[in-house]
């Protein structure tokens, strides 16, 4: 089971919040956030998915070739992430995503992230052919080893482009 770092920083949080159309100052205004029980800005609920930036096994990073900071063995158990990590990007879709939150992610946290494969199952597609579902479970732990976030991702491989 390969692990990688995931340091949380406020510019990444700002960029992510902007991308999802968030204007809530809790995500970017530390002067505002310091007046709340949270104490500092927090990451939006789905921000954990951006740990992909730091995952050396991630299959969807495009042309970027930044090596992993630690030498981590490529895990045979690496599960498909958002959108799938398998070879055929024309046929993999994200079916489901779930997060379980133990505490909010805040700047300065340095998390350790590890992913392992969950269940796999098949269903018949509406237009014939088979749909193959694969689950990946990602655990995010803080510097003390405490679990702060669990993300479960289900990908589906379709037989052909999904008609609209």
């Amino acid at each position, binding site marked *: 089971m390969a692990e990688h770092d995931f340091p949380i920083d406020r510019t990444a949080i700002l960029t992510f919040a902007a*991308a999802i159309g968030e204007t809530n100052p809790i995500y970017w205004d530390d002067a505002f956030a310091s007046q709340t*029980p*949270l104490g500092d800005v927090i990451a939006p609920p789905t921000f954990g998915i951006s740990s992909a930036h730091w995952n050396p096994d991630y299959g969807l990073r495009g042309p970027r070739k930044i090596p992993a900071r630690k030498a981590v063995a490529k895990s045979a158990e690496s599960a498909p992430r958002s959108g799938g990590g398998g070879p055929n990007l024309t046929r993999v879709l*994200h079916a*489901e995503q779930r997060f379980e939150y133990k505490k909010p992610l805040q700047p300065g946290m340095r998390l350790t992230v590890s992913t392992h494969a969950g269940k796999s199952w098949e269903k018949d597609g509406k237009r014939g052919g088979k749909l193959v579902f694969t689950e990946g479970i990602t655990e995010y732990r803080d510097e003390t080893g405490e679990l702060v976030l669990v993300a479960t991702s289900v990908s589906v491989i379709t037989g052909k482009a999904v008609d609209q």
Partner: protein
Amino acid sequence: MTAAKPSGSSGFAKCKASELAVGDTRELVLVENLSRTQIVMYAGASGDFNPIHHDEVFATKAAGYPSVFAHGMLTMGMTGRVVTDWLGDGVLTEYGVRFVKQVWPGDTLTAKATIAAVGADGAVLVDVTTVNQAGEPVVTGRAKAVLPR
């Protein structure tokens, strides 16, 4: 206002559980006429550079879709806003969705949150559905939060 959370950390709640009733709803227009630019912003922020979301040639010629389409996670991220705008920040214990239909450039998305359960301990269960301009659900899911009583 301090929310009671399982881990002991404080959230920033916007309401109390006692102020909510099963069946209460909120709606939020998440985006009007979704742009390819916002899809690209999301790709950069999330690290998901699957070309099906930003490369029109790949999406249409290689994959056979009518155009690029948005990351399901972009819709999930936007949908969360209807819950956090209503209940507060750092109060969620769970949030999960199924991706039902693709979201395309030009789509207008509206999220609806409905209170499904309220516990005496402050635990709240919320159903969420996001629909496009044709009223078709694109994402369905639920969230759990712990609020002050």
